[in-house]
């Protein structure tokens, strides 16, 4: 039938236009409500302000996952964008409105060595109740969950290293992190502590070189 519709010879052109098109709309009964928890472990070099993301663990309930590979990819891409937002990316204009970050010489995009190997978990597949697939949205979860986890991890690392820092505006560039420690003033008596997690310690260590060595985790203070 499709072939006939697109091959206009022998076609009743006087009574019917060639082609075959149909449009249908699906109106979902409601939004979907995915939920997740994001855990980030960082090391902060307090002398330079440099932040290194050591591990990132993302647990999401996306409902019924139909294609696990693309869902995994969405989370990886989202977390990478979130790391870019939290640590690197900013558009700066001068007083005349001239963009100062007009090229990648000054605009810092996240690159492969800025991100760790992610640990993800989508096993909690609680069915969405109001669509036939039972699926929930997964496109933005990584980008939404990662910046607060990362920023909280940095603040926690600085505090456990004896720096009374409560807030740093994103992106947490080395210069900004160092400036924050200077503004706060290093408190005496800050002792090195293991663990610098935004939302608690991940169940599995993200990097093999840290597995089984709790002393290796946390800030370099």
């Amino acid at each position, binding site marked *: 039938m499709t072939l006939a519709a697109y091959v206009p010879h022998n076609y009743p052109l006087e009574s019917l236009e060639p082609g075959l098109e149909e449009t249908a709309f699906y109106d979902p009964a409601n939004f979907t409500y995915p939920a997740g928890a994001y855990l980030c472990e960082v090391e902060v070099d307090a002398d330079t302000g*440099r932040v290194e993301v050591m591990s990132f663990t993302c647990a999401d309930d996306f409902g019924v996952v139909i294609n696990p590979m693309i869902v995994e990819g969405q989370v990886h891409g989202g977390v990478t964008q979130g790391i870019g937002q939290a640590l*690197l990316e900013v558009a700066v204009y001068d007083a005349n409105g001239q963009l100062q970050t007009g090229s990648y010489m000054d605009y810092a995009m996240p690159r492969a060595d800025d991100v760790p190997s992610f640990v993800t978990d989508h096993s909690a597949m609680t069915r969405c109740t109001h669509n036939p697939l039972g699926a929930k949205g997964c496109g933005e979860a990584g980008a939404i969950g990662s910046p607060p986890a990362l920023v909280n991890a940095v603040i926690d690392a600085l505090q456990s290293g004896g720096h009374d820092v409560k807030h740093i505006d994103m992106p947490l560039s080395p210069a900004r992190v160092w400036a924050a420690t200077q503004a706060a003033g290093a408190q005496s008596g800050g002792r090195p502590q293991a663990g610098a997690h935004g939302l608690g310690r991940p169940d599995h260590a993200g990097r093999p070189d840290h597995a089984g060595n709790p002393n290796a985790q946390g800030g370099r203070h």
Partner: protein
Amino acid sequence: MYAFEFVKPATVADAVAALAAEDAQALGGGQTLIPTMKQRLASPSVLVSLNGIAAIKGVQTDAAGRLCIGGGTTHATVAREAHARFPGLAAMASHVGDPAVRNRGTIGGSLANNDPSACYPAAALGTGATIVTNTREIAADDFFQGMFTTALEPGEIITEVKFPIPTKANYQKFVQPASRFALVAVFVAHYADGVRVAVTGASESGVFRWTEAEAALSGAFAPDAVRDLSVPADGMIGDLHGTPEYRAHLIGVLTRRAVEAAA
């Protein structure tokens, strides 16, 4: 990019002759010049490629024990061939830019450009190297004359750089997050008769020696020797990626780390 003539001579003499043309420009690896031309910020009438001159390529040791690197030698070649004789320099060369940059960019091009954030100026000044041109020898201390400014005359070509090999050396680079050029970097070289410390990326005057640290480290080559020293923020670069105060602070941190890591 505007139109230009292109010549690729096989000898230094032919290159010097070609550079006598009006608005002629020498081309090393082109890692700065070509992007600058693409942005139409430079428009030489003749581009004289130095890449066809075999005599200015390679890594050798001279009778005085200095490591002599031809001006047209790429960073990748230096990283590979200087490794056994001067590991500190090879390590520095192996972290310039990315593999594409290292396989095109040359030591002569980097030194002649004297970018205030480039790596090679710190190595040359930090070792007291001698820059050899087609007409003379220039001590590193006289060569660098402020950002993007050198002692080179128009048409003068760097044919070789002679590095006195230190007993220990290390280069610590703290990268600017976007470009990954040096936000600040420090080259420390320990010799039997003293220590040299050169700083790149930090100063509005380009690469410079931190003589106070040199004196302290010549007395005792240990991180603690420079722990109480600091560089004034006055005259340091302030930009999107760091204030003058931050850069001045990093000089101290990186100098201590370079001393710690020197091998």
